[in-house]
């Protein structure tokens, strides 16, 4: 069990989301940076889709009530009992120890995974908190000081006592995720249904940089910049949407839907962000700048494969390390043993 010691608003329990119910209006939710959550889970020996904590308001502190294997990934400066942890790191926390997360200057959200995963009820196939729908997680709300979280049984596994880290994806996959010289975030997208309606403004959509406004959250990012407007106004029939869709309301400043995206919309859509770049957008901070880069379907395939290979590599390596430790120590020296789920 773990106890939340100190938490601002908007930190939630998330897994990889609740797809499959968009046709009844239920947003998928799930981690804003699913890649970071997957890696955190794999580091502690979980299935990549186990539930963890998404921290987006800092500082955040929790106390371990028993010996617990945990990992912190994404954007955060993490300390246990005041000792700084390396980034993207797994280790064991002892009963009574406090894990503290402070903000990172470069990324917006951190993920904490625990061996066994956070054990809250599954609602419509997922443990993710739906703040809009007020269900999932703990009664559909964000974590508060004093909350206690039960953990599931962890799979029998051997983990290095001193901890284990991975190379973060932004570095490991640097050749696939280029950075602009002025540190503007480059986000790849394809033109969407109403792109042609924007005429010359459509070109400017790609060429100018956009600022992520303070009116941005898990539902969507509002972008500030010189407005782009369609050459004629259209009253659209409502259509299904997905995270990454870039819609343009009448004011001309685009909105990118994120993990808590509406499931349907009616604004003209100018572009759709590639899935492989969504986690980077999920880590973009309010006030930072981004530029959309016109991409191709083929590039989307290449990026998907690169990200999948990175996840597989982490999974295989962490399993290999676990097997090696087991072999060295003999079957009796297992950090934590539980029933297979």
């Amino acid at each position, binding site marked *: 069990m773990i106890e939340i010691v100190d938490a601002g608003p908007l930190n939630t329990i998330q897994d990889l989301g609740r797809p499959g119910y968009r046709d009844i209006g239920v947003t998928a939710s799930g981690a804003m940076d699913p890649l970071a959550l997957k890696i955190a889970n794999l580091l502690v020996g979980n299935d990549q889709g186990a539930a963890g904590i998404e921290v987006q308001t800092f500082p955040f502190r929790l106390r371990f009530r028993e010996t617990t294997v945990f990992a912190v990934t994404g954007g955060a400066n993490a300390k246990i009992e005041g000792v700084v942890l390396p980034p993207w790191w797994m280790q064991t926390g002892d009963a009574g120890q406090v894990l503290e997360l402070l903000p990172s200057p470069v990324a917006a959200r951190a993920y904490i995974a625990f061996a066994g995963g956070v054990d809250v009820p599954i609602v419509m196939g997922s443990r993710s908190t739906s703040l809009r729908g007020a269900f999932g997680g703990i009664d559909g709300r964000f974590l508060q000081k004093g909350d206690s979280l039960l953990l599931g049984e962890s799979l029998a596994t051997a983990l290095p006592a001193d901890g284990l880290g991975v190379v973060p994806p932004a570095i490991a996959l640097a050749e696939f995720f280029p950075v602009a010289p002025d540190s503007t975030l480059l986000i790849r997208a394809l033109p*969407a249904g109403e792109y042609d309606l924007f005429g010359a403004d459509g070109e400017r959509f790609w060429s100018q940089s956009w600022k992520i406004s303070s009116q941005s959250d898990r539902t969507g990012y509002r972008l500030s910049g010189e407005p782009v407007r369609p050459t004629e106004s259209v009253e659209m029939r409502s259509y299904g949407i997905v995270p990454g869709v870039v819609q343009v309301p009448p004011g001309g400043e685009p909105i990118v839907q994120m993990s808590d995206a509406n499931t349907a919309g009616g604004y003209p859509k100018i572009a759709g962000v590639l899935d492989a770049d969504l986690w980077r957008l999920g880590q973009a901070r309010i006030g930072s700048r981004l530029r959309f880069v016109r991409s191709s379907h083929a590039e989307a395939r290449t990026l998907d494969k690169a990200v999948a290979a990175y996840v597989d590599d982490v999974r295989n390596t962490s399993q290999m390390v676990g097997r090696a430790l087991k072999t060295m120590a003999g079957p009796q020296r297992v950090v934590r043993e539980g029933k297979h789920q």
Partner: protein
Amino acid sequence: MAQRRQAQISTIGARAFLLQAPGDFDLPAQRRIWALAHALRQWDDLGEVVPGMTNLLAIFKTTPEDPDVVTTRLRDAWERAESIDIKGKTIEISVHYGGEHAIDLAALCDRSGLTDREAVRLHHEGTYTVFALGSAPGFGYLHGLDPRIHMPRKTVPSLKMVKGCVTIGGMQTGVAVLTGPNGWNSIGFADLQMFDPTAAVPAIMAPGDTVRFLPERIEL
């Protein structure tokens, strides 16, 4: 003979494809969308099928190898989709027209040239069909709104429209199921629980259902 117009197919990112039915915003088009949704739910490589208002979003589990092949498959499925007539249930919703939640009724009168009483009457005399669900848990998009009270979405959305507001968005109408930002125009209020995540069937409305609004109270 006039050439039959083709469905439009566009993408949102590399994994989601939106098919828009050609022609009018009407029940025959929606019946074919329902048939298409039924057919597509048999495709193994599709993760989700989201019928909209005379359109359908098909979300693939992984990025398909060739988008042109997908477009052709979707177009063929659309051409083969026969009309489905869903025999839905009838849902009666009591409405308090006017009053504090009808924040856009005056604007509707200005635009339509109708009196508030006429606008309200046209709304509650209509018979509506649930075309699709979406936007918020259990929210039903209703078709059948009298063209005289069509009303474009607002340029500046209301930041906190209250759950239960009876609204008009373009040629669609519905009842807000969450309190929050909303670009539709409110003309009244209904007290009805539309969604229960723990129920076997979480949403009260389903595509093909008929909805009637009963004027419980008119406060103008």
